């Protein structure tokens, strides 16, 4: 009996691994998709940064009387910015505002009257900085000016403190991370685990997507397609048992699913270089994230049963559907539900809610995340394996029942 399954499996596998188009979709696509996407995004990001930095912002400063000295400090603080600055009197305020609206100016700084006096009298004055959040560079200019002006504020305070006879030290209450020794870093994440976290958050999503996508590509044709073409009947009038047919087909779908999962995992690993380049606050320990052999073992223990579960789900639908098209229609809602599950796991924090650990598919995704973040617990791994296999065997059982039911196989 298992010999028959093997004969069926061999044909399906031969098809999968010799048909270039299919091979491309099953193996190459999941492998290159993410690296391509992220390298493209990374490049675009970089180009944008270069563009922003080389852009000369147009800033207008419009000030009232009696603030020449302080205004000088402000202008000085803007020296280092790559900006084009014009200064005017307060009477032009309205036309300048209009120019910000028209995106003819990035920023408009309005300074009140008598700033010099305010500084001397230790009283507070207010600056207005108008920007346009729909302009390409306006917010960027705002941030830069904000930082530059903060320096002016500090200088004024420093001056006041010195004049009042207090020691300059009162300006600094404390510092952070300034006294680490040379061989010490503040980020105590284990070597590679920053990358692990990044990968762990994204990986389960992509793995489940490709498990599903590949199962669908192979699985829907596998039974529904054969029904549609009339070749299933040819198979059924042979000596082969229906169990062998289901098993043979099931394993081939599973292989396709696993190939997709592994390819996308490798793809994401490659892509993570670009990904790291994009996120600012990850440090240097990222470039050397490797999965140990234990992690790879755990990965297999979770992904293989998950692949079995998903391929048996697809095969069930494929068996029930009259043709590939109907099958696609039926499987789509499930596919979307699984995608939502993937996104949900992506967005849950380090400690997922209890129900996620219990629900099939979900628990595998959560455990996968743990594995990549190097804090998986064997209990959870085994539990996800058990639930996947339990659900899968129910699905296979139903599929077998359908395979023996002429009302399903020859439904019109």
């Amino acid at each position, binding site marked *: 009996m298992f010999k028959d399954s093997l*004969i069926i499996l061999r044909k399906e596998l031969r098809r999968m691994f010799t048909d270039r188009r299919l091979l491309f979709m099953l193996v190459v696509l999941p492998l290159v998709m993410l690296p391509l996407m992220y390298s493209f995004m990374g490049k675009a990001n970089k180009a944008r940064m270069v563009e922003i930095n080389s852009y000369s912002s147009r800033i207008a400063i419009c000030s009232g009387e009696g603030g020449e000295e302080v205004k000088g400090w402000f202008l000085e603080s803007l020296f280092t910015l790559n900006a084009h600055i014009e200064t005017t009197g307060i009477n032009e305020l309205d036309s300048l505002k209009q120019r910000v609206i028209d995106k003819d100016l990035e920023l408009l700084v309005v300074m009140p009257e008598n700033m010099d006096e305010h500084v001397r009298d230790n009283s507070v004055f207010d600056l207005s900085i108008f920007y346009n959040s729909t302009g390409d560079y306006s917010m960027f200019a705002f941030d830069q000016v904000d930082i530059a002006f903060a320096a002016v504020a500090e200088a004024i305070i420093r001056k006041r403190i010195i004049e009042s006879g207090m020691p300059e030290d009162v300006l600094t209450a404390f510092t952070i991370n300034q006294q680490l020794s040379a061989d010490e870093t503040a980020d105590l994440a284990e070597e590679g685990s920053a990358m692990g976290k990044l990968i762990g958050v994204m990986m389960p999503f992509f793995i489940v997507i490709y498990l599903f996508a590949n199962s669908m590509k192979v699985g829907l044709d596998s039974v529904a397609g054969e029904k549609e*073409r009339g*070749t299933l*009947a*040819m198979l059924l*009038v042979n000596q082969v048992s229906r169990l062998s047919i289901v098993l043979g087909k099931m394993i081939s779908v599973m292989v396709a699913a696993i190939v997709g999962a592994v390819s996308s995992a490798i793809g994401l690993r490659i892509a993570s270089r670009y990904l790291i380049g994009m996120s600012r606050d990850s440090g240097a320990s990222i470039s050397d994230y490797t999965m140990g052999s234990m992690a790879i073992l755990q990965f297999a223990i979770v992904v293989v049963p998950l692949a079995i579960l998903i391929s048996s789900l697809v095969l069930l639908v494929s068996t029930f559907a009259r043709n590939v098209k109907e099958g696609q229609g039926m499987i789509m809602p499930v596919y979307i539900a699984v995608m939502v599950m993937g996104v949900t796991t992506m967005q849950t924090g380090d400690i997922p809610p209890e129900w996620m650990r219990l629900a099939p598919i979900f628990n595998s995704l959560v455990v996968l995340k743990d594995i990549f973040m190097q804090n998986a617990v064997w209990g959870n791994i085994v539990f996800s394996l058990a639930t996947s296999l339990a659900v899968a065997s129910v699905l296979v059982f139903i599929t077998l029942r359908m395979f023996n039911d002429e*009302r399903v196989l020859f439904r019109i």
Partner: protein
Amino acid sequence: MLRVERLSKEFQNGRGRSKTTVKAVDNLCFQCQPGEIYGLLGPNGAGKTTTLRCLSTLIKPTSGNVFIDQFNVLEHGQIFRSRIGFLTSDMKLDGYFTPDYMMNWFGRLNKMEAGRIEQQKEKLFNDLQMTDFVNKKIDQLSTGMKQKTAVAISLIHDPEVIIFDEPTNGLDIVTSKAVTDFLVSRAESGKIVIISTHNMTIAEKLCHRFGILVDGELKEEGTLNEIIEGSTRDNLEDVFFSYILPGGSHV
């Protein structure tokens, strides 16, 4: 010998209140000897496919039974499957493989030894004039070549009973003739051949005995002479139409 005894098949459509029962095949009786070609004739929806599916174990009769020698389809499905070759109508083989590969594959599924597969392949490829294209992908073959391939595959295990559902449907006359000639040669070598068709010209030339099936009921049964003698018409086509055309004497 193949014998169909009071075969009936009903289908349940819909559910609940809108549930209806379709009597696709109603109390069918006929038999077929080795060396004979039996033609099941009928318009679309007459119940031909349903009958042939019952004969080939794909669906279970609601009542009645089918026998090949002493074996009946209800109890000896496995024996039936080893003795029949079945061809679905409008079958499209997976275009990715070659006829040769598919023959080997089905041969192995039929538990044939490699030597015997080679023997059968050679015989079928020759008889059906397929040798030129057995190593091309099925995708690249013409409709006729594809149908020959399907025929060859269904007979790889050299079955005693050949059951073909509309085997000449959609074929040009040359391939059509190749297929019918092939069926004649099979019958001459002692096989039982049962085909369904709605093409009276082909049926009249090919078959030894006929059953005219309309709405699941066998209206006429016998040799060409028997059928024509019992009716006012002088050819098979007219007899056939008398059952299905409005104004026909039996409508």
